């Protein structure tokens, strides 16, 4: 028996003695990242991390504690902290928080073993990729002044869940990711933009494509003009529509619903979006970022249809909220060892439509093609109302022809209205490696505040 299992068994015995149930989430990871600046190696980081998070359940109450010290004494001390926290969180409800039993995701675990590659890539090859991510951007166009952000990362991460019901599941994955952001300048105009990638195997890395697309993005935005204030039809590009899905993703959580914070309350079986809008959650989708055999309670993953023809079909649940809300269990428990148990989607897939991007852009005499939410959601979205007011950039199209880049404007509205106003979806998906897989989306009309 391995040390972790042995230590957990001692904790389980203690929990049994205390009349408690216990779960341990153990994460580990190794990350190598390499970055070049001005064609010289600038940073080389190799980090290793491990953390154990203990969840102790006493009836309707649960307490948490975590540590990076995985010695037997430290884990037992951490268990006692979690137990004390569970006792602090008084709850009179006659409710027993459930734990996942040992039956589960072993089969899925085997099916996903290809997500971990033990292939050893020589260091000089990784260095070459990192060097080229910057160099190729610098060489592509004289207007590229510098490449302030570029780098390659190699990541191996592991997750293991053990609980006092006898569950012991583990999963390991590896991937390469990278990015190159170029600062382009022409006259008084300067713009920074770039491209990134996420691949499972080294041979899939295509530096030329990343550099070309990244530089093209930065250069095409030079000389941007402001947009006249008004209402315009808008095509939100497929790389940016995830920002919109981010706004609504927590509304699908049964926990948020239970806490009265979901704007989808009372809408199950009702229309929440245009009938063109089909959304599902898929933890098996190989081109998605979050592929996993089990969720963070150890329950086997499953695919969930969330919205069909614009009608809300399901909320996302974990064991606790499936039981509390009497809803189907969808296995969407989510937490890190240092956080409490919540609910989160895996890969959200917005079904594609039939139109090409050119067709979408020619749908109206004037169309805003939105290619960047400048501040993400950091500024400008209010979850409690769905109102958003987000700085953005893009291009103005007239009768399908690009008139030029536009910037310094704000798109605003309410996200539920935006969903209802979706008219068409494009026929291509965004780059692989996102946890939100989306086509381009045409929205009938949005408010734009510019000059």
């Amino acid at each position: 028996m391995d040390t972790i299992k042995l230590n957990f068994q001692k904790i389980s015995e203690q929990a049994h003695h205390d009349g408690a149930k216990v779960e341990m989430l153990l994460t580990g990871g190794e990350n190598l990242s390499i970055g070049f600046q001005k064609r010289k190696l600038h940073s080389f980081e190799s980090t290793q991390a491990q953390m154990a998070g203990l969840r102790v359940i006493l009836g309707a109450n649960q307490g948490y504690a975590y540590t990076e010290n995985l010695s037997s004494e430290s884990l037992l001390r951490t268990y006692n902290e979690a137990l004390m926290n569970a006792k602090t969180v008084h709850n009179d409800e006659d409710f027993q928080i459930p734990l996942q039993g040992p039956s589960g995701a072993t089969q899925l675990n085997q099916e996903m073993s290809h997500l971990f590659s033990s292939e050893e890539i020589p260091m000089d090859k990784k260095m070459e990729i990192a060097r080229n991510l910057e160099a190729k951007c610098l060489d592509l166009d004289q207007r590229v002044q510098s490449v302030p952000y570029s780098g390659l990362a190699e990541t191996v991460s592991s997750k293991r869940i053990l609980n006092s019901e006898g569950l012991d599941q583990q999963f390991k994955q590896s991937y390469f990711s990278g990015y190159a952001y170029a600062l382009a300048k022409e006259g008084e105009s300067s713009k920074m933009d770039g491209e990134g990638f996420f691949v499972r195997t080294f041979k899939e890395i295509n530096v030329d494509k990343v550099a070309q697309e990244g530089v093209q993005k930065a250069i095409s935005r030079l000389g941007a003009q402001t947009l006249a204030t008004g209402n315009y039809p808008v095509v939100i590009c497929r790389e940016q529509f995830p920002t919109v899905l981010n706004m609504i993703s927590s509304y699908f959580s049964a926990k948020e619903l239970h806490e009265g914070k979901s704007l989808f309350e009372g809408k199950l079986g009702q229309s929440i979006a245009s009938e063109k809008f089909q959304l599902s959650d898929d933890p098996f989708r190989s081109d998605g970022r979050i592929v996993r055999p089990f969720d963070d309670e150890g329950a086997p993953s499953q695919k969930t249809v969330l919205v069909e023809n614009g009608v809300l079909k399901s909320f996302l649940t974990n064991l606790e909220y499936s039981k509390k809300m009497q809803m189907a269990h969808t296995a969407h428990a989510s937490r890190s060892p240092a956080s409490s148990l919540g609910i989160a989607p895996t890969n959200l897939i917005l079904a594609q439509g039939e139109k090409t991007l050119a067709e979408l852009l020619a749908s109206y005499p004037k169309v805003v093609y939105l290619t960047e939410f400048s501040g993400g959601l950091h500024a400008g979205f209010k979850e409690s109302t769905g109102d958003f007011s987000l700085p953005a950039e893009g291009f103005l199209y007239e009768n399908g022809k690009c008139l030029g880049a536009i910037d310094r404007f704000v798109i605003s509205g309410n996200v539920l209205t935006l969903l209802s106003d979706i008219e068409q979806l494009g026929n291509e998906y965004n780059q692989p490696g996102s946890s939100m897989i989306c086509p381009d989306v045409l929205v009938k009309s949005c408010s734009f505040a510019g000059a």
Partner: protein
Amino acid sequence: MYPGLIKGDIMIVQSHILSKALDAAMSSGADFADIFLEDTYSSQLSILNSRPEQAIVGQLYGAGIRLFFGHEIIYVTTNDLSETGLVKAALRAAQSRDGGAGKKTLPLLQVSFDSVHTYGEKPWEMNRDRKFQWLNSIDQHARARSSSVTQVEAGLNEKFQKIQIANSRGLMAYDERAYSRLRMQTFVDNNGLKESSSEDEGHMGTSEIYDQIQLKELAEKAVDCAMMLTTADYAPAGEMPVVIDNGFGGVIFHEASGHGLETTSIAKEASVFCGKLGQKIAHESVTAIDDGTIENGWGSLNIDDEGNKTQKTVLIENGVLKSYIVDEMGSRQTGHEITGSGRRQSYKYAPASRMRNTYIAAGNDSFEEMIRDVDYGLYAKKMGGGSVNPGTGDFNFQVGEAYIIRNGRIEEPVKGACLIGRGIDTLGKITKVSKDLKLARGMCGSVSGSIPAAVGQPQILVSSLMVGGRAK
């Protein structure tokens, strides 16, 4: 009160072990090495539905070892703080690069210093029930304020960070940093119109301050703001004069200029402020400071995360750029003197030049005159979050509470306003600065993680700024 004198004999790991690890780190020709050790206790408590909802405590325990080969940075981390673990991690760092013959490290000499900050009961010493009492009282005050309150969330986050730094120049230092922050959000439903609003309190220090703070006022302020928003119309759109309130209004300077003054951006030539030292970059009414020395200030330090004594740095004086924000590597790359600004979220991140308590200094104007001078504009009373692209200086941030200024008077409230602009342009348009300086807490995210950083300013008038509201 505690800690007072930080004595030279407190440590997480004994100096002879760190010396061995530094020798290993320097064995392949690095010209500098340092080790950052951390033992951090964190606690997060929260309430929801008028009852305790969440209680999490935890420990971060690890080390980051950094090597410089000229302008190259090698960084490795480990959770194993034994001699074997640290030496192994140091060798992993050293062996990633062949820089020639090994170099000597100087004998470690631990520095003693007087802490600027005082702390009370440590977070693990204070009874959890006492902490929940503060949170419960916020819930009760909020619900008592209005029957439209549908939900109250309140949380208390505490962190007690013990750090130890040793480097190949022979420096060794130990310090302790306590942080406590209480936040609340209230949700209201005013005849079907839903809104929410947040407030927070806290400092660099421990939690006993909440016995003194008027939590009732805090709760009522959040409820009143949420109720006001239910009746507010959307903000207008377009260029207009904007008066930005003091305190968290300083986020405009933080985003518009502060990030671009960090050598992290300057060295990459990814800042509009490159090469502008000594030049006039702002209206003469603007003096801006980044100060790590404020007693128990949210973004304060004694020593930074590279072991350097922190400072009060004048960034802009009467509109002229005087200094950048400089860490060890930034100093090597740009030649500017270190300002004691090397910071990181934890040992998991290599340090970078980061802001501390950054603010626009008090001026000579009065708030009332500022408002009187505006025919039509926006009074941004409560700012939300924001972001910046340091390469271009483009910034944006959200306004949580705003009012229309009409004919020199503050009139109706508006919601959904967003301010966007470009750093240098905006600095030139700050035409009035009031006498009433205030600082506020924020969390700043950048290359070396999320760190406590205070922002601040007196009320300022920006003669013209793009307001993103809604097209009518």
